[in-house]
């Protein structure tokens, strides 16, 4: 069955993709003899197979995702967590995940969602059937948000389900040790998956423009910190910028894509920009 996406598996496929210079060991049956006849050089023909895509959307449901400073308004929807008070990062993450799932299902890609915290909390089957989006939304909206995230473990559990190469979208604030992120991405990369990192942060976390000195309590059981917000603002922003750069470096290092979402801004423009960028990138020659 032919799908709308180019398959990530390149080789002998329906659609020509590119030429590559022959190196010793390559199968000779893929040599483009016409080119050899014209240029006396050996090139291999590579093809892109158009296929349906499996998309796994992993949503971080750890305690840190419970943070939010944007007041909720009627009609916004959101999860049980955010509906009680503010629009949280988890709300924003589920909104982004639901949107991406909707887009995938709309083009008949098979989509699954996985909620992870200390472990993989919940998951839907990977399907493109009608009504699956409702199941996805229900899964996103009904689970508790708590505990510390363990991304490598969640990824291990995902991979243990025998998933073949697919697109893995990780929606999280990535407020975790970067080594964990690196380990998780390395395993996904090893199994040949494509990964999109979607980092969701609250505007207060991005700007740190609090004006009162107060003790800060962690949402994942961290010790309380006495903070003079004004005095450490610049240092915090520096640390945040370094953290962003580190995460981006990791993603680029594995050849993955990454976007950042601000909970105070709409999900749509950011996702549109992501998809447009990927489209442009893929049409420009693939990888």
């Amino acid at each position: 069955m032919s799908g709308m996406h180019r398959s990530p598996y390149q080789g002998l496929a329906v659609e020509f993709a590119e030429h590559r210079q022959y190196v010793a060991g390559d199968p000779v049956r893929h040599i483009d003899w016409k080119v050899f006849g014209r240029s006396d050089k050996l090139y291999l023909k590579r093809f892109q197979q158009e296929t349906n895509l499996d998309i796994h959307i992993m949503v971080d449901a750890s305690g840190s995702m419970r943070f939010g400073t944007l007041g909720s308004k009627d009609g916004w929807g959101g999860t049980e967590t955010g509906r009680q008070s503010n629009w949280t990062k988890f709300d924003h993450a589920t909104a982004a995940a639901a949107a991406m799932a909707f887009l995938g299902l709309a083009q008949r890609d098979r989509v699954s969602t996985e909620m992870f915290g200390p472990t993989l909390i919940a998951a839907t089957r990977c399907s493109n059937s009608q009504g699956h989006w409702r199941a996805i939304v229900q899964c996103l909206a009904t689970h508790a948000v708590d505990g510390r995230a363990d991304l490598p473990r969640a990824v291990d559990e995902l991979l243990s389900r025998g998933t073949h190469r697919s697109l893995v979208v990780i929606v999280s604030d990535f407020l975790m040790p970067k080594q964990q992120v690196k380990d998780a991405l390395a395993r996904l990369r090893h199994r040949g998956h494509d990964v999109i990192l979607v980092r969701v942060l609250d505007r207060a976390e991005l700007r740190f423009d609090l004006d009162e000195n107060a003790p800060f309590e962690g949402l994942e059981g961290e010790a309380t910190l006495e903070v003079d917000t004004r005095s450490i603002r610049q240092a915090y922003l520096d640390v945040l910028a370094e953290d962003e750069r580190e995460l981006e470096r990791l993603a680029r290092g594995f050849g993955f894509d990454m976007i950042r979402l601000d909970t105070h801004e709409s999900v749509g423009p950011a996702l549109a920009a992501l998809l447009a960028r990927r489209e442009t990138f893929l049409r420009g020659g693939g990888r």
Partner: protein
Amino acid sequence: MSLLTFSSPGLAIAAGMAVAVPVAIHLLMRRRRKPVEWAAMELLREALRRVERKRRVERWLLLAVRCLLVICAGLAIAAPFIGSTIATTRVVRTLVVIIDDSAAANERLGTGTAFDRSIAMARSEIEQLLPGDRVAVVLTSRANISSREAASLDHRGAVQRLTGLAATELASDLSAALTAAAAILTHEESAGTQREILVCSAFRVGFVGGLTPLQKLGNDDAPVTIRATTEPAPDGTNLRITSIELDRVAGTGPGAPVVLRVMVARDRGDGVLHTTVRVTGPTLTSPVERPVELSAGEREHAVTVMLSERASDPALALRRAVVASISADAQPVDDSRASILAPTDRLRVVVVDRRTFETSGAIDRLPAGEWVSRALAPGDAAVIDVTMTDPAALDSRTLAATDTIVIAQPQLLNTQQWGLLTSFVTRGGVVVVLPAAGELVQAWTSQFTSTFSLPWKLALEARDFPTPVALAAEQPNSSYLATLGAELPQLSPAVEVFRALAVDVSMDPTATQLALQDGSPFLLSWRPLNARGMVVLFTSAIDLSWTTLPLKPLMVPLWQELIAEGRRHASAAQVVVVGAQPDIDRAGVVELRPIAPDGGALPGARSIAVGAGGRATGPIERGGMFEMLDSSGRVQGVMAAVVDDRAASVAPVEHEQLNKWLSASGEVNWIGGGNNGVQRNGTQPMSPRQTSGLAPPLFVIAVLLAALEAFLARRFSYATGIRPATTRQANGQQVVSEGAR
């Protein structure tokens, strides 16, 4: 020694305590904060780690600046100074406040007294002293027992001491007070200070006394500034009772009515004055009152009052005393006076003469002592006990049981016996001295004059008159022989004198009680200083070779009157002046207990113990009557204490006269005006609000610290350019105020 002290120690303490305010605010603000839930704790922790050291330094720096600011501001207001600094900015003062607490200070002025006014002004002056200044208080009634220690830095203690003081009924001694003040000012602790004496008084006659010249205080190297409170205007008139004398006994036997003569004198006021004399006493049947009117210009007025005593009772006989009082006026202290009525027991006279072995009984051979004995006890019914004693037997025991001593052989007394006679006169006894009849050279005269400090000059040899000289018909106006006054013109000329001692009384003209026709004295009297008794001298021996007096009718009444005077002195011996420490001549008395005029108890009055030697252990400090009690509590007699008339006088003194008198001690600046005066003239004391040496720089430092604090607080708040975007919800979470979604 450079000790840091403060003009306002309370403010300095407050400043020290105020340092805790910034710290307390800091702690309270921490406690009141509500926690904020936060997700990016690792980022926050890392940020904190990076700025923690810097923030700690900033916090401590800001706190230190704030604390220093509070300290400097507080200290500047508290006006600190260091000993060495003070010398360059102001002179430390040593102030000795002399308070007039004498009898004159009881004068009523408006709603208070002159003493209250003095205390108020002294207190005001002390409260204006700056820290480091010294102060001492000297009381004029007790100046000779004032402490000569250094003036104190404890101003509050001095004020408290003033609060506990009260005016006394004692005499004032400004000279002694100035001496005490000078001793205090010359104490090494006061070296180098500005030395001042403040005299707080109404400066009435009672305070200034006889304007006795005062000693000069200070010198060019260490001058003493004297300030004195201006005398207030007199407020009201004043009368006083100057004496109470027994005029006569109207009848015979115990219980006979007694007539007293009460003298009322004008102390202040020139117009017609009315008052009521009231006499009461423990033995009177009822108090007696007599209205008195002093006409304009009349200085003194005598009032006779007849008193009826209760039936004879041995116990009452020992309490025969009266208190006369007049209506209240400007000076309450001299409005009453106590006196002792003559004792009813027999008088005791000792005649000191050498016994003779002459048995003929010839009149021309009778010794002087015998003549005197016969004159004193002419019959069996005599009320005078006469005892003959040999000069060698005269001792203190003899004197203790005697009212009057007649010395007929003065040349036989030794120095110790003369000393005993001095004590005897001091206690109120009467000593009558006769020249030795058988001696031409009276060698005892020098001892006599020196013993009693007589102002007379006695010749060593008796003078023989070529022709007998009679007593003058016109005798001096003698209060001593007042009762003989009407008969003297007839009795005196009959007495002839052949030989007499020449006595020069030019220094004391009033001493002559009887004079010869040539004007030379025949009988002299003298009351030694501070003595209650008297010394009487006959210039002629009671011997027929000297005079015909023993044979003349004047002999008996003259000697009887002498003894009557002794009787009066015997009672006067029980009258002491307030301030004296009396010698009690009655054996067994151990306590002097004040009693009310009617003889009742006087609640709250302090008794005075009497020592084994008969001397009271303390001075009499109030006028009135005192019961003399023995160890079993029985009354042995009664003693009257009277306030010194002159000490209590509230008659005003001319200011020029005062200024001249007080200026003898140094330059005088008069301060105050009116009864509560605060207006000043003359040299002003240093302003108490004068800024101390360290206050200005401390203020400057405080201002600089305030500016630094403002700068650092803004700098360390990191508030520049940050616009708060969030507000806090009731649940503690942050909410964006703008709808950004």
